[in-house]
């Protein structure tokens, strides 16, 4: 008997896939060249590094960051393609929204890095405060859009499961998050403003930042948390042994991406505390974050790939 050969067609791509990669490569080059040619970096000033040391340290961060960008975009695109493959199905709308949210998280990742480099070109300029304000606020907008879209998608998926089995957000979690948000706001409000830095941490007055940066960030994380709970509930109640396995991988990926996006934002907000650390521990924190962030997107990619395979295998 002839051996049966299954047919797998995973070619149904989002039409802007190539464009997305081109934009990412352009941003990557801008980030790489911009970082290396920057006239004055915070690291050089703070740690008084020799030029060769400075380049080595920069490359040791830039290269892993660029790798994470590629992994993140690939993961988001795999999920986006999956949402296109299941177009017309009941879960397509929710999956599509989550895919859009992931694309915005990639945008957040790229914006954060590029804008940080851009500020270094404005040291001593009267524009510096404005550029720093843009650097702090543009990623907040990207993050809010990303988490809001993921939340919207999660609501659609949650609505598909049996209403009798649906669980709400645990009250203790809301209370815990409320305490965390209040503590963060208080910590930010009482922390002294470091005015000696060549590149200021915040572009706007300290009190204004509480409402334009800290609260929107906290809101974004809360929305992300609610989205995660909704997606987990969907995973628990949807039918399908193999489908759930693939979905679970994806969910853990999305959860870790949301978590590390939040941690990254938290570190940026509390960078005053970390600026007192020496270079070694600081780099270790950066590397751990980069690796964990990348792993989250790898899980998203693997989960989305398996879900896609279920839809295309013949």
């Amino acid at each position, binding site marked *: 008997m002839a051996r049966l050969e299954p047919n797998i067609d995973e070619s149904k791509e989002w039409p802007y896939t190539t464009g997305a990669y081109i934009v990412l490569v352009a941003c990557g080059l801008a980030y790489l060249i911009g970082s290396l040619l920057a006239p004055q970096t915070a690291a050089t000033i703070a740690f008084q590094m020799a030029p060769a040391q400075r380049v080595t340290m920069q490359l040791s961060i830039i290269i892993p960051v660029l790798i994470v960008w590629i992994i993140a975009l690939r993961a988001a695109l795999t999920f986006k393609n999956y949402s296109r493959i*299941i177009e017309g199905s*009941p879960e397509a709308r929710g999956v599509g929204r989550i895919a859009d949210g992931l694309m915005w998280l990639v945008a957040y990742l790229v914006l954060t890095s590029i804008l940080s480099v851009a500020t270094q070109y404005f040291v001593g300029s009267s524009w510096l405060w404005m550029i720093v304000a843009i650097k702090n606020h543009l990623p907040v907008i990207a993050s809010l859009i990303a988490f809001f879209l993921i939340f919207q998608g999660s609501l659609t998926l949650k609505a598909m499961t049996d209403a009798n089995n649906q669980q709400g957000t645990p009250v203790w979690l809301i209370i815990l998050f409320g305490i965390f948000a209040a503590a963060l706001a208080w910590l930010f409000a009482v922390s002294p403003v470091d005015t000696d830095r060549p590149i200021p941490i915040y572009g706007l007055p300290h009190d204004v930042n509480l409402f334009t940066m800290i609260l929107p960030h906290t809101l974004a994380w809360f929305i992300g948390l609610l989205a995660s709970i909704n997606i987990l509930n969907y995973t628990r109640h949807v*039918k399908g042994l193999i489908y759930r396995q693939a979905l679970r991988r994806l969910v853990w990926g999305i959860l870790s991406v949301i978590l590390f996006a939040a941690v990254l934002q938290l570190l940026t907000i509390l960078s005053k505390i970390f600026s007192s650390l020496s270079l070694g521990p600081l780099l270790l924190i950066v590397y751990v974050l980069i690796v964990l962030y990348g792993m989250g997107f790898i899980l998203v990619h693997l989960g989305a790939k398996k879900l896609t395979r279920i*839809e295309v295998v013949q």
Partner: protein
Amino acid sequence: MSDQDYQPGDLYHQVVSITEEYLGPAAPRFVTRQVSFHLNKTPEELSIEDLPKFVEWAHVTFSLLTDDRETVNRYVAEIGQLATKPWPGAAQRNL
């Protein structure tokens, strides 16, 4: 169930119902694809006679979706059982 209860596509729905336990919301799309690609039929045209070929292909495609042999064998056995299930009126209606 009487003969009158049987409609074209009943077997397809049974196959989808079993597949849903493994592939969840992807099940109808999976079964429709297998029927159309390997049997050159519409879901309504799926008949008992097609089940051996469907099972053969299901075994191959499921093996690509999970490494768990037990899951693959259980699914294939459940689909295979449909062929031995009494289907009133099946002969007349070519179910």
